[in-house]
């Protein structure tokens, strides 16, 4: 069978270009996804600032317009420093961090005068047991002593 490559001489370059890009996109899918989400937020924030455009953002961030062009395409591996800089310029948080065990609150349910109430207690990794014997005038002035028989519900 004829070598099919000879039928279309010197035409492999498009295939090579595509396969290199495809491998890159497949291999780096995760951070490209992060970059895309940041790009969307940058474009959204720019819409809300009168007179803001890519050129102006580049000038304020002291980068080239070409760099901003790549950023909004969602194809830049941004540094934390760059993300923080854009956040400050645009006045929005471009990234937020998910809850984790050291910033989660517990809700403690207890009964006061026949009704059920909840109290937020910061979770420090140590879970004391709080008393049912609570005195309070408002929820912000609750006094408690360690004891038993409290149902602790994680928020």
């Amino acid at each position, binding site marked *: 069978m004829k070598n099919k490559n000879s*039928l279309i001489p010197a035409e492999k370059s*498009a295939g090579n270009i*595509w396969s290199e890009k*495809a491998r890159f996109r497949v291999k780096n*899918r995760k951070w490209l996804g992060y970059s895309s*989400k940041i790009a969307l937020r940058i474009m959204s924030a720019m819409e809300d600032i009168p007179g803001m455009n890519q050129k102006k953002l580049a000038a304020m961030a002291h980068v080239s317009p070409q760099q901003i062009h790549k950023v*909004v395409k*969602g194809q830049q591996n941004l540094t934390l420093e760059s993300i923080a800089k854009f956040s400050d310029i645009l006045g929005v948080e471009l990234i937020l961090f998910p809850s984790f065990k050291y910033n989660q609150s517990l809700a403690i349910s207890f009964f006061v005068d026949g009704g059920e109430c909840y109290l937020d207690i910061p979770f420090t990794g140590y879970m004391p047991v709080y008393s049912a014997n609570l005195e309070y005038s408002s929820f912000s002035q609750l006094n408690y002593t360690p004891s038993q028989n409290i149902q602790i519900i994680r928020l």
Partner: protein
Amino acid sequence: MKIESIFANDYGSLLSIKYNDQIQDEFNRLFDLWSDTQYLFTFCKQNEQTIFNDYYRISRLEDFVDKIKNEAWVLESMFLDYFNNEAGERDPLSIFFLPYHPQEYALSVLQLSKAKVIDRRVQKPALRLYALRLDNNNFIITGGCIKTTEAVQECQYNMAEIAKMNAVRNRLRAKNIEIYDDLIYYYEE
């Protein structure tokens, strides 16, 4: 109009049209576009009246952008796996490309064909690649689009791509190109 080769071997070939007014061939151009967040952002805003509908059940721009990027990743992975599979015989390329007209069961010369994501995890795939079939296992990509409506006839992008497919078919027929081996006689226009 130029015909670029994406890959070609004894089992089959994937070719791609490069139109005179474009810098890239269609295969490269489309995958670059579908991974471009700025392009997708603009596309969604221009088409929000149609894409946020009962068919896709998406109401947020970011969700639609994520959908397209995910599909492009899956579709590109399908072709990349095929491209990288050097060992032994491969499945024919026709596993990716189906006749455009579903009622066509027999293969025909320069048959209008389409490819989309075939993956159970992807509901209602929106991306389309359009191609002409040359022989059993050789295809020329003529274009592609993001389908914005349930019915193809209601989507301006699909209809434009179908017109392109027909135009390329007519031009190849005019040059008596109907099978892969005829391409040796094709000169760039």
